[in-house]
């Protein structure tokens, strides 16, 4: 094992388990107005409640969104994310509470007088107008002179690379092009805030990925604040500066993509974003910010760190991402947590392999390894007895 030892060490170093993690609050050093107490939010939801009859769509929600943010509302369908967006656009009224845009209550401002534009999920391009006229539509309502409208439309067409299609009608261009026209139309008036309702939902996967980066570029070039509604967690993680995970009319957590992924505040969020192993047990103090988790009969307790305090005997859930768990055939030496199990399933994804390991208690733990080498001999196969190990800092200890 002698010569292997440094290699293993270096590998662990690369994976970052041994390196002190930056606290999730300082994840994004360049742009984080939400950490600046002097920064005024562009949008402020104050105890907003929205009811449709007896149904509570938004439940006492408070949220600040800052200028130049790319903010994602993420949640399953029916969680109230679209209602929030429609309240910002002015298509739904607020039952209780206030929404402020740049310090002003916008409850009584009709949609046509808000400095907010929306890109619709169906794109809502006007089928009887050409691409040019679609983009010029909002500018014409402002009674701008013709040469100004021409210049602005040309600028927008250039931004979305559709100069050649100005004279076409919406049904004469492809789906991806329509999506870009919708974006150009909603940006043409230079809104303070752009709302995007599932903007990439109708595109196929490859095009969607390209368009995500395009959206980010455009957001940076124009400096507009974007609020995007999506149910696709990958999309939210890719484009957003901050993500709000919603469920049943409430915001469960607001954080940067990194913060959401590495530091979820609940099992719901951990489970909603990416893949996760949840081990349920009871906590027992084991030194400063360290706890033992008793999780199964005849199992050694798991050592985990947590900033949140837990009392002895409190029920807790340890959330560990599969890529934070390594898998070996031999019993690892000096591991903080190591458990033996049996390989139940192997999912080979090309770049990654995920092993489903069944522990003696019946619990199944997913462990993921990157296939960094081509043609590497996979020495672990089905039904093999294996050891899985992870560090005390690898998981997040959650109360609920």
């Amino acid at each position, binding site marked *: 094992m002698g010569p292997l030892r440094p290699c293993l060490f270096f590998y662990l170093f690369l994976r970052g388990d041994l390196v002190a993690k930056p606290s999730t609050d300082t994840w994004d050093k360049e742009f984080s107005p939400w950490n600046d107490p002097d920064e005024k939010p562009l949008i402020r939801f104050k105890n907003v409640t929205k009811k449709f009859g007896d149904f509570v769509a938004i439940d006492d929600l408070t949220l600040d969104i800052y200028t130049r943010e790319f903010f994602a509302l993420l949640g399953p369908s029916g969680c109230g994310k679209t209602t929030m967006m429609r309240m910002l*656009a*002015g*298509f739904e009224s607020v039952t209780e509470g206030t929404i402020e845009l740049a310090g002003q209550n916008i409850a009584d401002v*009709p*949609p*046509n*007088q808000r400095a*907010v*534009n*929306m890109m*619709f*999920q*169906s794109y*809502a391009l*006007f*089928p*009887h107008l050409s691409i040019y006229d679609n983009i010029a*539509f*909002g500018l014409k*309502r*402002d009674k701008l002179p013709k040469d100004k409208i021409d210049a602005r439309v040309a600028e927008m067409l250039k931004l979305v690379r559709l100069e050649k*299609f100005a004279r*076409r*009608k919406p*049904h*004469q*261009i*492809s*789906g*991806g*092009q329509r999506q870009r026209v919708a974006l150009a*139309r*909603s940006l043409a*008036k230079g809104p303070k805030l752009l709302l995007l309702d599932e903007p990439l939902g109708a595109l196929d996967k490859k095009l969607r990925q390209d368009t995500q980066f395009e959206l980010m570029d455009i957001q940076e070039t124009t400096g507009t604040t974007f609020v995007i509604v999506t149910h696709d967690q990958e999309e939210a993680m890719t484009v957003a500066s901050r993500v709000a995970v919603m469920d049943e009319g409430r915001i469960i957590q607001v954080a940067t993509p990194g913060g959401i992924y590495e530091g979820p505040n609940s099992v719901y969020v951990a489970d909603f974003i990416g893949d996760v192993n949840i081990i349920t047990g009871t906590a027992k103090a084991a030194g400063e910010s360290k706890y033992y988790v008793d999780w199964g009969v005849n199992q050694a307790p798991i050592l985990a760190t947590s900033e949140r305090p837990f009392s002895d005997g409190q029920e807790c859930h340890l959330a560990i991402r599969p890529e934070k768990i390594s898998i070996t055939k031999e019993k690892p030496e000096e591991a903080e947590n190591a458990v033996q199990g049996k390989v139940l399933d192997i999912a080979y994804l090309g770049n990654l392999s995920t092993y489903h390991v069944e522990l003696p208690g019946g619990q199944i733990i997913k462990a993921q390894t990157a296939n960094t080498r081509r043609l590497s001999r996979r020495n672990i196969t089905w039904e093999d007895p294996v050891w899985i190990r992870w560090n005390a800092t690898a998981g997040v200890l959650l109360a609920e």
Partner: protein
Amino acid sequence: MKRLSPFNITSLTLGFAFLYLPMILLVIYSFNSSKLVTVWAGFSTKWYGELLRDEAFLDAALVTIKVAVMSSALATVLGTMAAYVLVNGGRFFGRTLFSGMIYAPLVMPEVITGLSLLLLFIGIGMDRGVLTIVLAHTTFAMCYVSVVVSSRLVSFDRSLEEAALDLGCNRFDAFRLVTLPIIAPAVISGWLLAFTLSLDDLVIASFVSGPSSTTLPIKIWSSVRLGVSPEINALSTMMIGIVTIGVITASLVSKRKSLNAQKDAQAAERAA
């Protein structure tokens, strides 16, 4: 080309004969030089000439067209408004009742509609004339318009209107600039329907028309009661001609439109 079986040929012939034999006879006899309708006495267009010199017929035709233009325009506006409110107005109190009631005149016997309108006009002391016919025709044509328009509005994407509001339109502008152009085909066909209904209405018009306002159908009906004259045949032939030209034009236009749409779709595919 597929050859038709004898059975198909027979049914086709019978069907079309049933539909068109009366009209063909009418057209043929309109060119009859004899005054007797049923006796063929050689080809002539003299009845067309007589018709154009007959002031009573010309007056009636003028009244009919006036009534049809005015009532169809009015019915289109009212019917479109009604359809818009019933489809887009949300769930207001009594909506189901209203949407049921707007269709009731469709199934109401015309005699009853005519009679009730007559009673109304007498009740409020309105002299019967062109105006009363226009009002009566508007009443029953607007429900046809509203049926046609609301069936289009049901499939209309509401987010288009929201997009217009979002881009700075008020509600009226959103309707005028976005909704109306898109539902225009339905509005136009509603108008056409209202126009034709008004053109050939006999029952309601005969209830509410006054002595100075005889429409063409009333005129034809009353002169036929005195005996069918070849002039009537000529008039009917002209009407058939006008309707035929209208129908053929409409179908050519819509065919060209669908061809263009096909071309556009192909162009979009190439562009993608």
